[in-house]
């Protein structure tokens, strides 16, 4: 994010594009409400009438899968209405003329049939966004990233902020609000196939030399080419490129697309290691399960969505034989010939991050003690941290300027047809999280709803299929077929059904297409084709749904049953 979470409420306009903070980040949603109370304009562009749409000044119900067409049109209107800042464009951007060659033809009259947005509404929104004082922020989430044209959309979002000069000043710019509590942090830490910690490229020889020296290995030991992305792992196993998979703290058989296919692919591994806190659908098929301490049982630091590092403590001692994640990996590395001998998280932080990433040098454990925090870039010990990026129009490109890039609109990979006439879009809800292994084991949260979960369907689509509220239905796609419950929802659009992510029986990822874009390898989870059908015998369906859920839970218990039998009780292997 170029802006901080607290800074959002000081903007003059927040435009939420494919982002539903009430479900994904309720505390950010509060900032939107506070911004509104302070006089900010709120624009919501989303196919669903999400909670924030209720308080929006403008609501734009764009069609699913039309993001680039929408954004190109939005940009087109900005220029044709003269809402752009020519001086900022001249001084701080490059490529405007080339960019305009693509954008020029995306007039609102021409794209209305694609986006579903009238020229009048498009112009009103563009004016509201571009004219807002003192700043506007474009906020997005997976409604942008989990689409075929995800990187393309982000290029255009960034271009819109640049041509209007709604970036490069306080509380402005771009807010891609990261989902998981440490997704920004793990990217910052170099848990990415193209960069060392601090986004230092692995293809840069100088960076390789620096890290090789710090790690006490010859420079040529460090790979000089980018690695694979984990969202491609299934196909890579199938092609024989990946033979071993060390999966740490993820449950891909719940959270990755086309999970049934992925399960077959994982079975072909020579060795599949899972390091986790729970028995999950993924750890249940591992060859080795390494038990780690949970959040609450260890200390460390997290990086929030707005680049803020904060410390957290342990509240409980480790249970059973659980060990801290870093201790397990360091022990394994030592056994495999590369000793890692740290004694504390602080030592790791100081040696592996602060010493090797200049922009984080000032992020000391002392600064983050108690309620303290450190927001990078924070290059020196007395630096206050950086809530706003790119102030004054200094961008992080080699020439310091923003490079405007435009793309033509393309259809999603899979579009509805007669056999699969509905779009399936995966979404989140407030009470459960990701694969649900944590929230599903919480007493209060587990009361909110139960398996087999829900498919949200518009009243017209439900009626056409003879489906009533709470009926059990089949949802099927080219990948699979699941049973779930109908939630007839008048806040969603006709022609698209929405399924939340966390249900193990009503599992949307048994249905989603596994298509990823080449650059980011993010799956197109927002756009699969499917059909919904009433289960004829509702009594049978209730029994069936209950039974398969009980069977799944029993399998989890069964796979963890060996936990009760210590090696000495079994006799030494």
């Amino acid at each position, binding site marked *: 994010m170029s802006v901080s979470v607290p800074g959002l409420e000081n903007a003059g306009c927040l435009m939420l594009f494919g982002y539903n903070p009430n479900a994904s980040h*309720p*505390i950010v949603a509060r900032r939107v409400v506070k911004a509104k109370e302070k006089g900010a304009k709120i624009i919501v562009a989303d196919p669903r009438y999400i909670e924030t749409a209720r308080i929006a000044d403008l609501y734009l119900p764009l069609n699913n899968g039309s993001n680039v067409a929408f954004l190109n049109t939005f940009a087109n209107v900005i220029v044709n209405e003269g809402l752009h800042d020519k001086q900022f464009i001249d001084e701080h951007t490059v490529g405007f003329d080339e960019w305009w060659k693509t954008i020029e033809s995306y007039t609102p009259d021409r794209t209305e049939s694609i986006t579903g947005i009238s020229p009048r509404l498009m112009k009103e929104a563009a004016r509201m966004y571009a004219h807002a004082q003192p700043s506007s922020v474009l906020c997005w989430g997976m409604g942008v*990233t989990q689409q075929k044209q995800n990187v393309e959309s982000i290029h255009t979002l960034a271009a819109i902020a640049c041509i209007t000069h709604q970036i490069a000043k306080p509380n402005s710019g771009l807010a891609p609000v990261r989902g998981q*509590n*440490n*997704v920004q942090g*793990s990217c910052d*830490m170099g*848990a*990415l*196939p193209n960069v*060392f*910690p601090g986004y230092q490229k692995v293809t840069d020889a100088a960076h390789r030399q620096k890290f*090789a020296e710090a*790690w006490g290995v010859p420079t040529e030991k*460090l*790979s000089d080419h980018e690695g694979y*992305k*984990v*969202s491609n792992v299934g196909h890579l196993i199938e092609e024989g*490129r990946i*033979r071993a*998979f*060390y999966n*740490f*703290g993820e449950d891909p058989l719940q959270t990755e697309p086309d999970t049934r296919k992925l399960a077959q692919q994982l079975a072909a591994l*020579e*060795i599949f290691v899972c390091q986790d806190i729970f028995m999950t659908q993924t750890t249940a098929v591992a*060859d*080795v*399960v*390494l038990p780690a301490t949970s*959040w609450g049982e260890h*200390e460390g630091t997290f*990086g929030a969505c*707005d680049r*803020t590092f904060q*410390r957290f403590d342990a*509240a*409980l001692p480790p249970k059973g*034989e*659980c060990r801290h*994640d*870093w201790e397990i990996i*360091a022990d394994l*590395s030592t056994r495999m010939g*590369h000793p890692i001998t740290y004694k504390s998280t602080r030592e790791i*932080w100081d040696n592996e991050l602060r010493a090797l990433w200049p922009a984080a040098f000032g992020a000391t454990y002392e600064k983050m003690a108690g*309620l303290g925090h450190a927001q990078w870039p924070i290059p020196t010990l007395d630096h206050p941290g950086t809530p706003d990026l790119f102030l004054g129009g200094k961008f992080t490109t080699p020439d310091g300027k923003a490079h405007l890039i435009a793309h033509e609109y393309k259809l999603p990979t899979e579009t509805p047809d007669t056999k699969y006439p509905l779009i399936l879009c995966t979404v989140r809800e*407030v009470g459960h999280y990701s694969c649900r292994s*944590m929230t*599903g*084991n*919480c*007493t*209060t*949260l587990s009361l909110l709803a139960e398996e087999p979960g829900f498919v949200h369907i518009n009243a017209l689509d439900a009626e056409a299929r003879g489906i009533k509220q709470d009926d059990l239905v089949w949802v099927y796609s080219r990948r699979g077929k699941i049973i779930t419950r109908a939630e007839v929802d008048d806040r969603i659009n006709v022609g698209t059904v929405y399924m939340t992510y966390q249900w193990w029986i009503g599992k949307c990822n048994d249905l989603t297409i596994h298509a990823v874009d080449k650059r980011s*390898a993010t799956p197109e989870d927002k756009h699969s084709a499917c059909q919904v059908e009433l289960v004829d015998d509702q009594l049978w369906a209730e029994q069936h749904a209950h039974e398969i859920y009980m069977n799944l839970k029993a399998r989890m218990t069964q796979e963890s049953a*060996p*936990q009760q039998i210590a090696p000495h009780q079994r006799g030494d292997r």
Partner: protein
Amino acid sequence: MEKHMAVCPYCGSGCKLNILVQDGIVVGTEPLQGITNEGELCLKGLSGYDFLNDTKILTPRVYHPQLRPVKGAPFERVTWDNALNFVAEKLLAVKEKFGPDAIMLTGSSRGAGNEANLVMQRFARACIGTNNIDNCART
């Protein structure tokens, strides 16, 4: 009652909270005046703590290393030495036969924390010799 400072383990908002512990059992959370949450918590921040008590409502915690001695065999609980030597041996065999790029590893963008990711990416790069390290940033 003990109070332990933490950051919420769910979304990326970075809300500071206290974990409340009574006799070794987590009994609640309370919001703190963190930079992003300023004394507020959401439903998950307020109610998402007692998985730490291993309620087994959905699925049990794992407390001991376990492995399948041969592919497809039932799990057996083993010692840490056995488990880590087994993994080391298998990974080295794959590396020997197919090269370091035949091994895929992940960090974790959830409760493990930054330091575990730092060690994991170093293990991938300096020990295995591959950049096949990634995290669940996309889903």
